[in-house]
């Protein structure tokens, strides 16, 4: 009897110990990211699936892109960032100049790094330390509202001359409040960048000298190109945009109704722009439009967002397990789908082959196939970008000439670049 009771107690203790051990390994994690609704939904599903698989609980912290950098900066400064952090590739030098900003992913065996090419791993490294893993390759591409062009009886443009002609027809047939294109703030900056890159074959920053590669005349040409598109009514003016409170394109009623019929956006954001369109309208990714005399496609292509593990995480191993699940394991891959573009991970790319929205795939194929110089992360440095956009605004309001704006941009950019010498 005594022996029986002893055995019972022993079994109970063993079971309790096992339960406690199981609980101890279950971590409570946080993951932060930016994105649109479709990405939020997909990521939450993926976190649920991966959490259930590995026995962890992951709380999602998500916002739109606006304000994410500020939020992350504050968290990084206070050491309170989430365990898994989505980081924009150009921000890597800001948060981890010497490779100590995030956990070294090579020291976390749970992440199967063999799924990425050496180029991908290098792009996520600073000072030789792997700080973030590339989720996908992304680039700016053209989206046009096919329905609007069909309504006006013109084909979707394949070059800028066709876009000019289509603008005229659209306005005549559908009304003056119809625009063939959109370029505000960052998009305006990248459109000018595209025009200059196509013409010169050079990126903004010359990696050899760490200074602006363009001459003031070349840049002024790009600014005038933007000015011309506004002048012919292809793009709404900066003033008109400000009058409406600088609302995001995908939130504008004019976009939803097809009255703004095109834009130049990240390939992975196709759903963000296609979802708000009113029923029956089709958004189509289009190969790079060229300006006259272009020497390259001038594609603005870069590693997409990275996923990093916080160096302050109490459970870096658990965070690494979830990161690996999101990018390399069926549960994560299936749930995420193409919400962050077509994945860089080989196993994920294989699993999703032929899946996902054909438009996202088509947009990504355009970006991957297009040619262009290697772009510098400094294109998106907050100070350089702010100087660029402010100068374009002054030009748009007629405060300065294209030449002065070009000089202002070059001087401001060189000042920032000099700090990184």
């Amino acid at each position, binding site marked *: 009897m005594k022996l029986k009771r002893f055995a019972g107690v022993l079994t109970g203790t063993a079971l309790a110990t096992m339960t406690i051990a199981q609980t101890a390994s279950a971590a409570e994690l946080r993951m932060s990211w930016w994105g649109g609704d479709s990405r939020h939904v997909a990521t939450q599903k993926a976190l649920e699936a991966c959490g259930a698989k590995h026995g962890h609980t992951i709380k999602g912290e998500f916002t739109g892109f606006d304000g994410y950098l500020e939020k992350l900066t504050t968290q990084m400064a206070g050491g309170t960032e989430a365990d898994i952090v989505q980081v924009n590739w150009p921000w890597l030098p*800001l948060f981890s100049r010497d490779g100590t*900003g995030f956990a070294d992913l090579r020291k976390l065996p749970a992440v199967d790094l063999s799924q990425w090419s050496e180029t991908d791993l290098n792009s996520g490294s600073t000072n030789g330390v792997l700080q973030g893993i590339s989720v996908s390759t992304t680039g700016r591409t053209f989206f046009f509202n096919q329905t609007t062009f069909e309504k006006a009886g013109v084909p979707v443009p394949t070059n800028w001359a066709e876009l000019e002609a289509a603008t005229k027809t659209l306005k005549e047939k559908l009304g003056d409040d119809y625009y063939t294109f959109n370029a505000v703030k960052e998009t305006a900056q990248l459109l000018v960048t595209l025009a200059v890159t196509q013409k010169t074959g050079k990126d903004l920053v010359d990696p050899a000298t760490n200074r602006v590669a363009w001459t003031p005349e070349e840049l002024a040409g790009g600014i005038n190109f933007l000015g011309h598109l506004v002048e012919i009514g292809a793009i709404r003016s900066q003033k008109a945009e400000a*009058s*409406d409170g*600088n609302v995001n394109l995908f939130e504008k009623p004019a976009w939803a109704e097809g009255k703004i019929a095109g834009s130049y956006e990240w390939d992975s954001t196709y759903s963000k722009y296609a979802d708000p369109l009113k029923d029956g309208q089709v958004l189509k990714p289009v190969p790079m439009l060229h300006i006259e005399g272009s020497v390259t496609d001038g594609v603005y292509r870069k590693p997409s967002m990275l996923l990093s593990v916080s160096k302050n995480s109490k459970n870096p191993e658990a965070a690494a397990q979830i990161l690996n699940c999101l990018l390399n394991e069926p549960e994560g891959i299936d749930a995420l789908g193409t919400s962050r573009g077509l994945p860089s991970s080989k196993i994920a790319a294989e699993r999703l082959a032929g899946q996902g929205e054909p438009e996202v795939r088509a947009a990504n194929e355009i970006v991957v196939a297009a040619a262009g110089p290697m772009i510098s992360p400094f294109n998106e440095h907050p*100070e350089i970008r*702010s100087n660029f956009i402010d100068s374009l*605004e002054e030009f748009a309001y007629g405060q300065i000439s294209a030449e002065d704006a070009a000089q202002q941009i070059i001087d401001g950019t060189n000042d920032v670049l000099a700090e990184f010498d």
Partner: protein
Amino acid sequence: MRSATRRPGLEVSLARIRILLRRAAASRKGLRMKRQRFLGLAYLAPYILGLLVFTMIPFIASFYLSFTKYDLMSEPRWTGLANYEKLFTRDRTFDKSLWVTLTYVFLTVPLKLAFALFIAAILNYKLKFINFFRTAFYVPSILGGSIAIAVLWRYMFASEGLVNMALAMVGINPVDWFGDPGNALFTITLLRCWQFGSAMVIFLAALQSIDKSLYEAAAIDGASKTRVFFSITLPLLTPVIFFNLIMQMVQAFQEFNGPYIITQGGPLKSTYLLPLYIYDEAFKKFNMGYASAIAWVLFGIIMVLTLVAFWSSKKWVYYAGDKRS
């Protein structure tokens, strides 16, 4: 008679007991006072702690940081007066932002105070449903600072928004509220003025506390309503006007939500108030040292203007019992 029969030894003992009782009472009182003092400190502790952690330490730290180059990610590097030198000699954005901020404050504060006083004077009358109206006018101040209201404001004043639609109905051409640099600051000012409720409530309380006999005396003397307002109401309200002036001025200098959500400081930086500039430098450009220097200059401006207001108050603020005529 009984005391005469008391024995001397007993009287001594009674006196000792009385002394002991008194001492015990005094000691209990002291203990109670000590306890009360401790209780008082305990009540104050959360506030003092909050003040230290969230105000005093950042306040002192920002003063130190204003003399450094600090990008949030690496250690601050001492640069002496370099930030202030740049601020006052080479920074065109600061000049512009300072000018916009001063314009905003000098527009907003008088407008808001005048409007708050006007509404408070109306709400001081005995009207039907007066409590409903008082609540209705106060509600915007509760909602006013929120992001949602700023977003609503953006839609209302958009080129095809509610305000322009209303103007069109009465035959007035639409106004470019946000796109025109000359109008954008005024539109932001309107949002601030709309939040007049807190100043209004204080004015209303002050109006209700004015002795009615003064009005009765003025009525007997045949004073007109305008004369009564300027000779009785306004002078007696000056302490409250002064209080509201200081509070509203400090708040106006710190305005952030409205321009951040609605105009992002544009167009052409026409609504780029100093708090926005501080925010951009600190959290978008990672120049925390420089941002701290701007914050301290802003603090200095608020301090100087507050001192000027206090100094001038001797000439125009009348307190009860004041001998000035």
